[in-house]
């Protein structure tokens, strides 16, 4: 359970707050995505949730941030890391530099926590398996691709067994394969362990397919907070410069000319779009195509 209560935060030596009156409550096991233009406060929110604000960045914080009823300002950063894991954009900068193999890299956090060796070995094996990089265990973390490194970063956090995982644009520097790897890892994680996930992202297509909830930030404020479907199909989305999913754009334009049923919800995923467009089609051959191609894509 994460609870932000009227959080306003200003970085040192800046005039404008980066977060303004942000109140947000995320129940256990929810996958909450955060979108917003660059500079809207996504990273700041991620740092606030993981305790780096105010502990590392200092600056001025008002309001309260609680993780499972622990006030993040009342405990040290070191205590918080056992509750909240943080993954961010740059895969390279997340490698500790203290280790020579992926296995040891994942162990780094566990060693700091003082986990016993046998327990460590079990956790590492399990985590590497879950994230799908068991075959990389003996490679150098620095010899991997960005997508692989990002999964090592995620594994390093998961091994520490946090109840909350915060990810700040983890796929922005990755290619489509790397992006898919990261999203599938997150999905598996939520299904298997009920981890609470907060994800800042630009890739609307993926958010639509995976997230439970979508929060929109603009100028440090929460301006929308609802299901991905409701947010992504809302007319006011355009105001916040985060783009509109292509399927929504296409269906909206199609509705104008009668190609999309007026009473049908706008689609946010490929499947919904396919279904909607083919429902207004008369040819059964199209439906047949649809059934055949159903298993490809997402």
């Amino acid at each position, binding site marked *: 359970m994460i609870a932000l209560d009227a959080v306003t935060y200003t970085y040192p030596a800046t005039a404008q707050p980066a977060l303004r009156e942000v109140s947000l409550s995320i129940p256990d096991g929810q996958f909450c995505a955060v979108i917003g233009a660059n500079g809207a406060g996504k990273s700041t929110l991620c*740092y606030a949730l*993981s305790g*780096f604000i105010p502990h*590392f960045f200092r600056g001025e914080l008002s309001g309260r941030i609680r993780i499972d009823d622990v006030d993040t300002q009342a405990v040290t*950063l*070191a205590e918080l*890391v*056992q509750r909240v*894991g*943080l993954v*961010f954009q*740059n895969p*390279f*900068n*997340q*490698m*500790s*530099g*203290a*280790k*020579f193999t992926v*296995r*040891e890299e994942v*162990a*780094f*956090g*566990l*060693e*700091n*926590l*003082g*986990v*016993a*060796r046998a327990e*460590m*070995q079990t956790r*590492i094996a399990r985590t590497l398996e879950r994230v799908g990089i068991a075959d990389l265990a003996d490679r150098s973390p*620095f010899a991997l691709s960005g997508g692989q490194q990002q999964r090592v*970063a995620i594994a*390093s*956090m998961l091994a*520490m067994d946090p109840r909350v995982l915060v990810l700040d644009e983890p796929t922005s520097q990755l290619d489509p394969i790397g992006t898919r790897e990261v999203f599938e890892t997150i999905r598996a994680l939520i299904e298997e362990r009920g981890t609470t996930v907060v994800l800042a992202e630009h890739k609307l297509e993926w958010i639509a397919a995976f997230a439970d909830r979508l929060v929109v930030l603009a100028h440090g404020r929460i301006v929308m907070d609802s299901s991905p479907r409701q947010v992504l199909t809302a007319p006011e989305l355009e105001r916040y410069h985060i783009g509109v999913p292509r399927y929504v754009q296409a269906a909206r334009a199609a509705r104008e000319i009668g190609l999309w049923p007026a009473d049908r919800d706008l689609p946010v995923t490929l499947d919904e779009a396919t279904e909607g467009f083919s429902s207004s089609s008369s040819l059964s051959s199209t439906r047949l195509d649809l059934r055949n191609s159903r298993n490809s894509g997402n």
Partner: protein
Amino acid sequence: MLIYLTGRSGRLHGLNPITKVMLTLVVIVCGFVLPGVWATWLVFGSIVLPLSLWGGIAGPLLRAVARITLPFAISLFVIQGLFFPGGTPILSLGPVSFKAEGLQFALLFASRLFLLSSAFMLLLLTTHPGLLMLALVQRGLPANLAYIIVATLQIVPRFQARAASILDAQRARGLETTGSLVRRLRAIVPLVGPLVLGSLVDVEERAIAIEARGFSLRRPKTSLIDIPDSRAEKGLRRGLIIAPVALIVARLAGWLR
């Protein structure tokens, strides 16, 4: 940036790093305490060379040692051979002459350098630095110090890779990096600048990354890797302490001249 050689069989790799550190220190102490050129070569021939053969690294070791000591040796023989204070001339070259004492002095120091670097190389070529640091931490070296050393060893190759991308990026903006000295000097700032600035700015994010992994938790750390240490090795190390101590005592007492 690792000169550690893997894939070479040989029991030397499997020894506890502390044993090898002590071995290196013993060799160095012996080389400097024992008088005369003969002693340094005796120590090399009786300890370093056999061990490097046993460890299967004699070739790389000799190459590395030659690379390190050659510039010094040349300087020593030329400078000290020619300009050593006083001494007996044995070969005249115009206004200057090689002197016997100078050449002896040069030979002694060149030999010591050779021994010193070969002892270091014996350790470095057969000991993974990660394991070495871990072993030292387990014997009381502050973990933060070990972190700094290991992190440095990983950053230097990354620096080299980034330097190559920076070189490409600046040349693509019309920077000339070859030609006259002035031109090359002018290229230093655009080439070194992004490397230094970028890596210093990155420090913040990298600090966040290790903090998020509990780096500054103040509790006893554990270790994934277990370093084997046999009873025999423990005994060997005790023996290794005795040798240099005995030598130093002997030297101070004036038994060795």
